[in-house]
């Protein structure tokens, strides 16, 4: 059965999509795992990184995307497979072998679709909260059938807490929470930790032993300055935080341009492959795969 790994933070611009793609690359290439990335962000960044703009547009035209799959309302593994693009990414492994990365592409319609689903569940004067909860259950049911399709299922969540994201957070075996070491990240991390652990207050989250929590924070876009170090320490004082930090590094940013020509992971990431290797090793050790 597949392991569900969500990448989430209600704050935008923290690198959820890039981290999702990095993890997909790392688990497929170094871990030899079959990975399915489900793009739950209407912005579709991880889809664009994995298949490029033209292929993504083509997928939209063919209705091969998350919104079309949800609308299908036929949630078993077999139909889901019809919406998944196989062996995507511009990477190749040694000997020209393709890494086992599959993608359920994102869709710009995904946000509207969630709203429509909530109104569907709100019919007959159903209270809004109840409708939202049913909607999240609907998404959960739709997502969990991905389990037999891959060994690792990466759920790239949208910023904010949409019903789809709420479902992903409930379903996930582990959530990676990327954050930028800035002054508002503390609040964002506190808040998503409560949601992941199903608690209403931060103190209740803090009562859970850090190692037993279902999330790991990951500092991203880290500059070699004291202010960033202190902010990371501040978050790590309350939340389980990976020792690996992703630096503000041009090589890392450049790795997310999709290219027609396939490249090895070392070629694609350059010197940033070292950092990525550390992240993969640390995360793989802390997951119960």
């Amino acid at each position, binding site marked *: 059965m597949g392991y569900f790994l969500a990448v989430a933070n209600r704050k935008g611009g923290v690198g959820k999509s890039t981290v999702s793609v990095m993890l997909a690359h790392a688990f497929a290439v170094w871990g030899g795992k079959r990975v399915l990335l489900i793009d739950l962000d209407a912005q579709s960044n991880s889809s664009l990184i994995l298949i490029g703009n033209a292929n993504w547009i083509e997928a939209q035209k063919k209705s091969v995307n998350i919104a079309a799959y949800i609308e299908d309302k036929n949630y078993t593994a077999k139909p889901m497979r019809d919406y998944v693009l196989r062996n995507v990414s511009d990477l190749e492994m040694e000997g020209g072998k393709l890494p086992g990365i599959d993608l359920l592409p994102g869709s710009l319609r995904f946000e509207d679709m969630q709203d429509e689903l909530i109104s569907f569940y709100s019919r007959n004067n159903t209270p809004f909260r109840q409708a939202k909860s049913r909607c999240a259950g609907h998404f959960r049911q739709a997502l969990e059938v991905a389990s037999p399709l891959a060994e690792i299922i990466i759920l790239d969540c949208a910023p904010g807490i949409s019903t789809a994201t709420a479902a992903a957070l409930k379903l996930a075996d582990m959530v990676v929470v990327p954050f930028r070491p800035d*002054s508002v990240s*503390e*609040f964002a991390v*506190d*808040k998503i930790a*409560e949601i992941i652990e199903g608690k209403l*207050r*931060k*103190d209740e989250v803090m009562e859970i032993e850090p190692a037993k929590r279902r999330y790991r924070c990951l500092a991203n876009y880290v500059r070699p*300055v*004291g*202010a960033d*170090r*202190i902010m990371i*320490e*501040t978050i*790590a*004082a*309350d939340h389980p935080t990976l020792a690996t930090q992703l630096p503000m590094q041009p090589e890392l940013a450049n790795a997310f341009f999709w290219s027609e020509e396939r490249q090895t992971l070392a070629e694609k990431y350059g010197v940033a492959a070292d950092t990525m290797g550390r992240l993969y090793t640390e995360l793989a050790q802390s997951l119960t795969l």
Partner: protein
Amino acid sequence: MTDTTKKLSGPAKDRFFKTLLADDEGIDEATAGRLSARAASIVTSLRARQSGLAALERRSARRRTAGPKPAAAEPVPETVAAPMSAPTPPASAVQPAIEAAAMPSSTPRPDDSEAPFDPFLFGLVPVYKREGADGLIVKLAEVGSADHLRAMAKSQQIVLPRELRTGPIDLVQLRLAILEAVEKRVSDRSASL
């Protein structure tokens, strides 16, 4: 904490400062006398570690036998060494911190060296979260300059009251103000949830 600390006040506290400062070989007799008087005038009571007091007493006794620094070798008062029934520490973290804030630095002060001061030497909020108010005050005591303390607070977005941001100031007062500002920031963050 109550098992291993001792509350000192009144003459016992005054004698403690004298002995402590006299114990530092880098401080001459006159300076030790001046600083101990100043500390004694500001601090009403303090809580000291039993182990630290015992070590201080041993060193002081050795000096008395050997005879160096006669002026500073005033014996550690009986009251310091004698067991005391220390009250339970107050619920507020500030009071023990006030006591600890008066403790002179035992490590070299950053401003003693030539190297430029790093305002991110340690994280004010992380230390407070990990080690509490006492822990933060102990760390702050390692910074022996008002400018450095202010730079540290400013760089780490810990806003001090306007009147404390410039001009001459007592270090103990400044450290406590930093502690309060850190506490305020942490509680503000909690309240926002």
